[in-house]
């Protein structure tokens, strides 16, 4: 007993003294080694983790076999302006934490089970505003205690369930992977608050010259986030990401009262040159003018009724479609055991046709930039401390691989993480879709027109923009809430898209080939889309469009032409136009 105590103490001392990495320290440059071993936050996390692994137990009950801590330190600033006035300009800093604690063993632990609800301890201590290690440790202590007690009971619930039920696919609950050390820190580049406000006032003031716009708002947000990760297998990492985003949201009502919305988003990892280049007033007005003209035109447009026919997804919409169809379902690839358990749909497609045979989809977090622009989806380590790998998700139309963390998902295989576990599940980095038979954009439109003629509609639809969550949050108008509602539900093999902000009709009945009339239309939304439709993609474009939702990942996807999709017409009862002109 005495010897065990002294070993433990030595291990703790080693952690505190700076030997925080357990593997491949020679691969790290000296500055990184110093940064990791000298980080007071990481040391505090490691110390509390070690204390819990050593001593956290209830007599007669299993002790933790794995604990990980993820702390993120978010420094941010926000500005919002409307009609020439700055409405808010705040700076903020907050810390958040996530604890993964497992009891049992890698084969069977408390995870991957949906039983009832175990009401654990309520004690939670707040995280500090700055990197106060005393308060960080206190918060970790309270959270770990609560997690442990709940884990013990959940494991018991799971074991009780499995004694009376078959074990299904017999997959291990967790896997042991490498325990790397990693450090990467970008420089802080907070924006000049004065310049941000000037830009906000000036741009929002200009937007005030369109009186039919019921709401217009300019927003700027800057985030500098530092992730700290430690786990009981020895992984250690510190990684930072940052974001500079300028947003403009515009809202109005059509003549029948239907809410209309559009937006502009300019976002980069690197600082935006405020008032210059792409964010000069002239450049922003040039970008916004076609959006404003389009909205004005839509105000008087008659809404389109229910539609069935060809649809071309282009721009952001193409990337968002790929995201909802292929990437978002991978946030949960392991179905929990329990009375409602059923095989995971996405995983059941391993090796199966998902997209046309000409299509390959890769996820390549190592890609740092595209056309000179830093990519948000570029990262080195995931949030389980595993190195991000470049993988092939779909090859020649068939599902090859998944966005994997440490949780095994495929039976009968030795599991290896490919470093794609972020934000609580499988998460993409930089996803790129390519076709071996790409079609130029103008030819895509020709095919769209031809499909429309063949279908009997005489036209096809082009969807180029869906909801952007950050831009949507700028809206405060009470009628805006319904704009982001999806009409469909995500389910087995189906996914939903938010109503389009920008959708056009390409009318093959007017003009000659290559010169068809393209008119903005409104009033359409998507019911749930069956992922089988993806196999019916008629053509894929040449040039990729970049889509980076919420600055968290990147999708490079060319235009996708569907030969047949359904869209729903708009609601019959729209709110009245304003009483006060």
């Amino acid at each position: 007993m005495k010897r065990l105590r002294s070993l433990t103490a030595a291990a703790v001392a080693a952690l505190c003294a700076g030997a925080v990495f357990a593997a491949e320290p020679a691969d790290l440059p000296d500055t990184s080694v110093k940064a990791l071993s000298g980080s007071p936050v990481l040391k505090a996390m490691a110390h509390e983790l070690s204390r819990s692994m050593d001593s956290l137990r209830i007599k007669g009950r299993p002790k933790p076999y794995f604990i990980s801590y993820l702390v993120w330190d978010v420094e941010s600033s926000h500005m919002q302006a409307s009609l020439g006035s700055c409405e808010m300009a705040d700076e903020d800093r907050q810390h958040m934490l996530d604890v993964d604690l497992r009891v049992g063993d890698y084969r069977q632990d408390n995870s991957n089970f949906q039983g009832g609800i175990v009401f654990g301890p309520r004690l939670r201590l707040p995280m500090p505003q700055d990197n106060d290690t005393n308060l960080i440790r206190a918060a970790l202590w309270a959270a770990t205690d609560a997690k442990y007690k709940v884990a013990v009971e959940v494991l018991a619930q799971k074991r009780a369930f499995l004694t009376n039920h078959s074990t299904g696919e017999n997959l291990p609950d967790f896997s042991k992977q490498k325990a790397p050390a990693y450090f990467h820190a970008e420089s802080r580049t907070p924006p000049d608050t004065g310049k941000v406000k000037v830009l906000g006032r000036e741009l929002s003031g200009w937007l005030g010259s369109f009186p039919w716009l019921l709401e217009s708002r300019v927003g700027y947000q800057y985030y500098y986030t530092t992730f700290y990760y430690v786990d009981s297998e020895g992984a250690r990492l510190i990684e930072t990401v940052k974001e500079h985003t300028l947003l403009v949201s515009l809202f109005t009502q059509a003549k029948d009262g239907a809410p209309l919305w559009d937006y502009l988003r300019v976002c980069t990892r690197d600082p935006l040159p405020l008032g210059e280049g792409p964010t000069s007033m002239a450049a922003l007005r040039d970008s916004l003018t076609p959006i404003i003209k389009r909205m004005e035109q839509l105000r008087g447009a008659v809404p389109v009724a229910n539609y069935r026919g060809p649809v071309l997804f282009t721009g952001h919409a193409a990337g968002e479609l790929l995201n909802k169809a292929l990437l978002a379902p991978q946030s949960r690839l392991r179905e929990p055991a329990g009375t409602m358990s059923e095989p995971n749909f996405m995983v059941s497609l391993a090796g199966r046709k998902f997209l046309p045979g000409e299509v390959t989809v890769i996820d390549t977090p190592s890609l740092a930039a595209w056309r000179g622009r830093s990519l948000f989806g570029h990262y080195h380590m995931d949030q389980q401390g595993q190195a991000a790998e470049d993988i092939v998700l779909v090859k020649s139309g068939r599902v090859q691989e998944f966005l994997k963390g440490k949780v095994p998902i495929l039976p009968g295989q030795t599991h290896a993480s490919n470093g794609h576990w972020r934000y609580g599940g499988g998460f993409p980095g930089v996803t790129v879709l390519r076709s071996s038979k790409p079609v130029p954009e103008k030819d895509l439109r020709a095919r769209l027109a031809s499909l429309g003629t063949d279908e009997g509609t005489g036209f096809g639809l082009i969807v180029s923009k869906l909801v952007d969550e950050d831009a949507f949050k700028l809206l405060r108008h009470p009628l805006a809430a319904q704009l982001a509602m999806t009409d469909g539900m995500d389910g087995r093999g189906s996914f939903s898209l938010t109503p389009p902000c920008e959708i056009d009709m390409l009318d093959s009945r007017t003009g000659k080939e290559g010169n068809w009339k393209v008119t903005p239309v409104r009033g359409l939304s998507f019911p749930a889309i069956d992922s089988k439709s993806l196999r019916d993609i008629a053509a894929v474009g040449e040039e990729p469009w970049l889509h980076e939702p919420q600055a968290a990942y990147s999708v490079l996807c060319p235009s996708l032409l569907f030969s047949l999709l359904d869209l729903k017409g708009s609601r019959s009862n729209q709110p009245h136009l304003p009483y006060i002109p």
Partner: protein
Amino acid sequence: MTLPKRLAIILSLLALPACASTDRIEARLSFYKEHLQHYLGALRKADSLTPYFLEYRVNDTVFHSFQANRGGVIEDKSGASRYLGVEARVGSPKFDNTHPMRENLDFTAWEGYQNIRIPYESEGKSAEQALKVASDFAFRAAKDQFIKIKANVDVRPAENDTGLDFAPAPSAKAVEPSPPPPPARKKLDSLYARIRRASRLFANHPQLYSTQIDFNFHQVRKLLVNSEGTSLAHCETLGNINLYVETKAQDGMILWLTRDFFFQEVPVDFPYDSLAQAAEILMRKLDTLRTAPVMETYVGPVILKNIAAAVFTHEVFGHRVEGHRQKAVDEGQTFATKINQTLTATFVSIIDDPTLASAGGIPLNGHYRYDDEGVASRPTMLMENGVFKDFLFSRSVLSPKGKSNGHGRGVLGLAPTARMGNTILQASRTVPAASLRDSLRALLKRTGKPYGLLLHDISGGFTYTGRDLPQSFRVEPLYVNQIFADGRPDRVVRGVDAVGTPLVSLRQIAAAGDDPAVFNGYCGAESGWIPVSAIAPSILLESMEFESRAKDQNMPPILTPPEVRP
């Protein structure tokens, strides 16, 4: 010529800031008044149903907020914000859209647009746009509700409501000069350092699981204009330092204690010693509480110490005399027919007086000059020498000639209802507070009970006033002593809550001490969380019932809290 010219110039310069400040406020009020008239005119032309009333409320809040624990900073924020609320009424003052709706779950109700953030700078286009949309939506919501309420009244059994949904009130015009702004954040460094240092006293106590010291200060300038000509600008200022300590008994019961210091100006020199002393007392008491035995259920004599008595007054009596509750038929209406009846001891009177700014040097949370309907606050005698006299009223009143008594309160965005301000229990006959123990022992002897209870402090409580559940109250004592009939030393106990019903409980007041004290807090009800006070001396109740308190079913943390390092 009475004053030397130089002195006159100095005096006029001194006067300038106040005048300039008042001018700015007048300009702002004019902005809202002009837009109100313009938009009301537009709304009256828009539809067959028209608004008969429109009101704008704008709150400017300047705040400081600081939270410290174990020597570290959890939050340090300062800022300013401006928010807008709009009310529109459709119908008539006798019957309008605010009339209570009975038994109706409506999924198509038009949602208003409330609590809108507008720029914290001179009003311009952005504020104008917000006013336009908010006025429009407030009218649509009122119209929607009025159409539905008319049918609801016709279909349901007849109400006994002879009152008015919106009693007339004289228009009020008042512009108070701005008080001095709170100190800038930089000037609070030393105060925050002292708070932080005091919070470190909580460190390295293995049984202390959750602790915090909070500093809050906010100064709210309230503007109110309405279509009746009311135009008000006044300020409310509130600040407090709160110490909080929490532990867990071995049986899982969560135990906590708290101590507040209230102020109306930022106490930049608030002494560290006061914080340290308060922290030490809290930790000592909590430690006693943690190992105290759990009390059995009980009924018998009880002394409510002054602060506990104040909370008792608020929960047992105060909520039941909120006037609007007497109109709603699903409310218990406990006191609706009790005017001029004796309900409690003849030496007891209860008054609600929001005009009082402080008592015994302690600022009162429930002080305000104008309520949130623009009616001047005034003292209201609720219980006089044991006889029930009156209710608290907003402009929703019980009789055709009823009037608001300046108690219409609600947070921005919620319609004001009758709420308490400073609720004061006064005793015309008192005994030295210490002698209440003798009176309690006398009761114990008479009833043959082995002990009575002394409640030092109550965390708060709640009261249920609706008809579909027992119309009872529960107050949650934080620190309770048993006082033994045989004279042995008091014993601290834990694990019980006081329960009862109002009419029975009020009749139990047997004696009052000479030690009134202030309870400052926040009260939550239909119109939101508002600051209130209650003042009472210690009182002896002949009988009160205590039930077992719900207990958390999680054991204390397995590991001791991490050591705090310098």
